C-alpha cells in the first residue's frame, strides 16, 4: 500500500523533471513521455487512494497526508479530463511540478490512519469534501492555465518569440480554458459551502460558525466570484483573469494548508 504511493510519487517526480526539460528544450517526444509518466503515476495513485479508502472505511481525508494526496489525485484526474478535451499538450508541463510538490508534501506528513471524529461520520462527508476537492482542483488547473496565459502574453507583448511561443496555444484559447475551469470550480465551491453549512446545521445546530476555514473559503469564493463577475462586465478578460486565477489559487492553498497548520478550528485535518 505504501509502495503504490511511493511509485506514484516517483512517476510524478520524473514527469515534473521531464516537464521542466520540455519547457526549456521543447521537444514533442518529451511531452509525450511526461504524459505517459503522469498516467502511470495516476494509476498507482488511484490504487493507493482505493486501498486507503478500504483500510479507513471511509473517504481517506481524515489526515493531512490523505487530504493532500486526495487533492493531488483530483488535480491529476481533472488534468486528464481537460487534456482529453482541449489537447493543450504543454499543460502537463506547467502543472506537473506543482503536482509533484503537493505529492511530496503529502509524503512527508504522518500517514497514520486516524479514526474519523464521530461528529464527521456522515454521508455529508462524501458530498461536501468531494465537491470542495474537485472545485479546488479546477482552480489549480485554472492557475496553471493562467500562468501559461501570462507566459504567452509576455512573449507576444515583448515580441520575443521563442520555441515556447510556438508551442503554447493562442491567448484566446488559454483565456477560454481558464474561464471554463473557473466556471467548473466556482459552482462546486459554492455547493461545497452550502452542503457544509447544511451539514453543520444538522450536527452542530448552526449554519455558520466563522471557523477559520469557513472564513477563508468565503474569501476564496469571493475572489472567484469577482473573476466571474468582471468577466461578465468584460473588465477581467485575458490578463486580469489570468492574474486573478493565480491569486485565487494562492488563497486556495492558504485555505488548504495555512489554515490547517497556522489557525485552528474543527475543520482541520488531524
Amino acid at each position, binding site marked *: 500500500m505504501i509502495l503504490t504511493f511511493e511509485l506514484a510519487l516517483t512517476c510524478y517526480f520524473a514527469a515534473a523533471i521531464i516537464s521542466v526539460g520540455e519547457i526549456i528544450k521543447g521537444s514533442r517526444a518529451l511531452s509525450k513521455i511526461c504524459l505517459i509518466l503522469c498516467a502511470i503515476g495516476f494509476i498507482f495513485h488511484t490504487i493507493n487512494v482505493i486501498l486507503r479508502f478500504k483500510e479507513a472505511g471511509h473517504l481517506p481525508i481524515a489526515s493531512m497526508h490523505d487530504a493532500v494526496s486526495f487533492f493531488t489525485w483530483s488535480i491529476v484526474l481533472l488534468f486528464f479530463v481537460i487534456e482529453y478535451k482541449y489537447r493543450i499538450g504543454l499543460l502537463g508541463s506547467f502543472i506537473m511540478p506543482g503536482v509533484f510538490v503537493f505529492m511530496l508534501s503529502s509524503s512527508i506528513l504522518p500517514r497514520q490512519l486516524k479514526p474519523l471524529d464521530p461528529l464527521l461520520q456522515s454521508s455529508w462527508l462524501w458530498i461536501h469534501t468531494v465537491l470542495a476537492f474537485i472545485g479546488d482542483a479546477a482552480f489549480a488547473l485554472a492557475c496553471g492555465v493562467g500562468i501559461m496565459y501570462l507566459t504567452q502574453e509576455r512573449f507576444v507583448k515583448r515580441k520575443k*518569440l521563442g520555441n515556447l511561443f510556438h508551442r503554447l496555444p493562442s*491567448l484566446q484559447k488559454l483565456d477560454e480554458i481558464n474561464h471554463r475551469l473557473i466556471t467548473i470550480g466556482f459552482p462546486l465551491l459554492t455547493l461545497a459551502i452550502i452542503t457544509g453549512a447544511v451539514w453543520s446545521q444538522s450536527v452542530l445546530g448552526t449554519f455558520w460558525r466563522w471557523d477559520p476555514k469557513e472564513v477563508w473559503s468565503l474569501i476564496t469564493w469571493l475572489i472567484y466570484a469577482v473573476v466571474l463577475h468582471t468577466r461578465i462586465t468584460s*473588465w477581467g*478578460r485575458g490578463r486580469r483573469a489570468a492574474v486573478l486565477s493565480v491569486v485565487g489559487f494562492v488563497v486556495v492553498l492558504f485555505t488548504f494548508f495555512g489554515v490547517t497548520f497556522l489557525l485552528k478550528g474543527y475543520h482541520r485535518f488531524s
Partner: protein
Amino acid sequence: MNIHVIGLNHKTADVSIREKIAFNGDKYVKGLEEINSLHNVEEAVLLSTCNRVELYVYANGKSGINEEVTDFLSTFHNVEKDKLNDTLYTYDGVEAVRHVFRVASSLDSMVVGEPQILGQLKDAFDEALSHNTSGAVLNKLMKKAISVAKRVRTETSIAENAVSISYAAVELAKKIFTSLDGLVCMLLGAGEMAELSAKHLRSSGVKEIIVANRTFERACVIAAEVNGRPIDFNTFKEEMKNTDIVICSTGAPTYVVSKKDMESVIKRRRNKPIFMIDISVPRNLDPDINNIDNVYLYDIDDLQGVVDSNVNARLTEAVKAEKIVDEELQTFERWFYSRNAVPTIVSLRQIAENIKNDELEKLFNKISGFDDKEKQAIEQMANTIVNKLIHPPTAALKEDTDDRDMLIETVRRIYSLNGKE
C-alpha cells in the same frame, strides 16, 4: 554510381542567365526528350523552376557525360558555353544523390524550408514518367527524394515558422486569436505589403476587410482589389470597435492613432483583444498603445525581428535535416549497389552453369558406356567444382563494401558479362 546532376540555381546564376536556360512551355518536353536521347544518357529527369534548372541523369558509365549535357544546354538555349560553364554545377555519384535529396527537402532553396520545391520536383518526375525518360534508377531516386522530404517535414520544424513579414503577421494573429475565422480586419492606408498581409489574412479565414483611406476613391480601388468594404476615413476610429486586426500603412508623418484613442476603443470593444500592425515608416500608431491590456501592437521592425528569429530557427532545424539526408543517402546507396550485384551474380552463375553443361555433354558424347550411377557421380563433381569456384566472387559481390561498384565492374569485365546484356 553513374547518377549525375548538372544545373544552376539562384546562388550560381542571376536571373538573366536563369531566364535563358529555363525550359518553359513547349521547350520543356522537347528538352526532356532531347536530353534522354543523348548518347551517354540512360535516364533523365528535368527540373525547371524560376530559381533553378537541374538535369538529373543516369548515365551508361562512359566518361564525358557532363560535357555532353553542357553542350546540349548551350546549343539548345543558344548560350555561349563559357558563359554557361561559369554558372553550372555538377554533382556525380553519391554527391548527386545528396543534392537531389537536399533540393527536395528544401535545404537548397532560397528560403530554406519553403514547400513549393517538393511539388515542383514531383511534377518534374511525373513529366519524366509520362514521357518514359525515367527508369528504374531515377524512379527510385525521385521516390526516395520525395520520402526524404516528407521525413524532413515531419521530423523537423523546418517549415513551421513564418519567414516573410506578411506570413509572420498571420502567424502572430493565430497566437492571439485561436482561429481567424469570422474576424474583421481593417486596412488603414495603402501599400503593397499591407495589401499582401490582408490577402494572407483573408485566405486564413478573415471574414471582412474594411478599407479606410484619406481619399475615398483610393479606398474604393483597394477595396476592390482585396474584396473589402471601403469606409470614410473620418469614421475609422468608430469602426475599430468591431475590428480585430488593424493593418496600418498610411503615409502620415505623425501618429494617426494615439494611446488615448485605443484606450477608448478597447473599452468599447469590452476588452476583446485587438492586433495592430503598423508597417508605415514613420510609424502611424503610437508605440505606447502596446502597453494597453489586450492590445498587441507590432511595427515593421518587430515583424522583421520575428522573421529573423524564425529564419535562424529554420537554420537550426536544417542541421537536423542534413542528418536525415545522410541517413537516407546510405539506404539509397545500399539499394543501388545491391540492385547491380544481383543481376551480375545471376549472369555469372549462368555462365558457369552453361560451361558445365557443355562440357558434360561433350564428355558423355565422347565416351559412352557410363552407367547412370557413374554419370551421376561425374555430374556431382562438376557441380561441386563450379560452386566452389563461383562462391568467392559471389560472396564478395553480396558484401556491402565501399568499392562494390568497382568490384561489380571488374567481375563484369573479366567474364565479359556486359557484352551479353
